């Protein structure tokens, strides 16, 4: 797992919207070794993530 981005740390790409199109950019760039942050206004429905990152 990549290390979490620190507060205020500059990344290669920030993507507004963890959407269908945002995901594609994210996958492509992350796989190219770029540091990517997706910002999503809605909740993360993945319970797995919720349970493994309590209180995040």
């Amino acid at each position: 797992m990549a290390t979490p981005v620190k507060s205020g740390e500059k990344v290669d790409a920030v993507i507004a919207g963890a959407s269908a199109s945002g995901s594609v950019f994210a996958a492509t760039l992350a796989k190219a070794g770029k540091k990517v942050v997706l910002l999503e206004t809605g909740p993360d429905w993945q319970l797995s993530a919720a349970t493994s990152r309590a209180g995040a």
Partner: protein
Amino acid sequence: MAALGSYQSGWGVGGAALHYFANFPRLLPSDFKMKSEHNRGLDWPISYQDVARYYDKVAQDVGVSGDAKAEEIWRPAGKPYPMPPMKTFRNGELWVKACAEHGIRLAPACVGMNSTEYKGRPACIYDGWCHIGCPTGALSNPIVTYLGEARRAGAEVRARSTVTRVLMNKEGTKAIGVEYYDADRQRHTQPASVVVLAAWSAQNPRLLLNSATAKHPKGLANASGLVGKYMMCHFASGTWALFDEDVQNHLGTTGAQFMSYDRYPKTSHKGAFGSTFIVAGSALKTSDLGGFANARLDLFGPDLHAFMKRAARGLTRLNAFGEELPNVENRVELATEKDEFGMPLGRIVHGYDEDAAAVWNANFEEGLKIAKATGAKEVWSGRGAMPTIHLMGGTIMGTRASSSVVNSYGQTHEIANLWIAGPGIFPTAGASQHRLAKPRAHESIALCRRPGASGRRASAGVSLEGGEAGGRLRARRRHGRRHARGGAAPIADVGAAGNYREQARREHQHRCGRSGEGVGRRLYAALDRRDHVRGESVCLHAAAVRPGEGLRAGDGPWHRQPGAGGESGAAV
């Protein structure tokens, strides 16, 4: 009118594709050359041939089932789909002969669903609950495809993080990151070398406009004044057929079993201009927007109950999606009212023109003829107010900075490290990709061949490791056992896709007690949110539509729903 594009806006990580139908039809070459071929609308700066191989690639990436050869009567040849077509059921099959009698050939719908196991994700069980979040992973939503892959490659996803502004350097030459607010309404900034806006066709312009600076007084990337302009959508003409026989309408997929491009040529209908894309056979529910009850909006009381009983056995639908032409007056702009972060709401100004209304009406007329040919006991048009489905445009692509916002890669003409992703960059809407951003997003990927960040071809080598993901998620799954009722096989393996729906179900359960209560429609609601453009919606060209069925301005604090108060039928 209801907010433009009111059907498909998603809510949460995964976006609208959390509850999409996963239909993956393509545009046709004519969509890219409308201006040069017909002197109408706009041309794309690229051709079908430029994106064809990405269509093929995306089909492999996400897993599309279909029959490419069968489609090639309408489009240039490409690669076969990785999986054979999905199973069909009586509610779809009975349209085949009737359509043929009217010169409409039906091919298997190409869908982003597994007809066989694919990349570690299971085959579909055809229970027809696609639209509220496929729980098995058989449907290729972003969570089980690109987003999962992005996460595994180290991309960080921050939910409950609302971007409000793109931040620029002092000189106004470069984006330096974004401003956003977290769940506690704390303000943050995220510095970045490249900023990509993939927030929805209406939301991206809103962000660009809200990011105005002294150097960019009209908003970012808006020297042309075209940010927010050329908003487009699709409209559907649904035709219902009611049989006495059991057409198995609870089985299949929510989207479609069959499709046709035989009315896709722009001048297919006399006196109308624009493409039509036809689909047949959708699994139906009792109570959601396109369910039994809304097939006859005029019925209530004992009449409704009698209809529900008949519909549960014998109701099926043919749907024709129409193309709206780009019109610069159809736009999203900033309203005076603000959201909880102080960001102005979006205001949508939209209306259909005569061509759209004519295509819509022609499709109803043809739909009825076809429906009669099925031998159904009763047939009728699902005519309400003219619906607005699948929002596109607002940041269109083109070759010149004076007449478009981004280039063919989604890069803004004005700011080299600011990109737009999604169907907002399409200069024409076509009629076929009526499953929101997904196919388009992939095309947009396709269009991101040289992302500023990497200098690499962005489309290369996307593959899934569903097996690994599935295993990890299986290990983590600990809540709520699932079981099948009524004959479907129990789900042995619940992949990543199930989790958001599971959580939505659980939340629902907390609210409403037991989970079985209206779970379908309400889960759809849980996954849906559009109130960031809850500002006023204004209608243009209302005269183009017949009285009583046009888009109506929100005359008061209540948005209106297309179809409300109509004589019958939900237009879905």
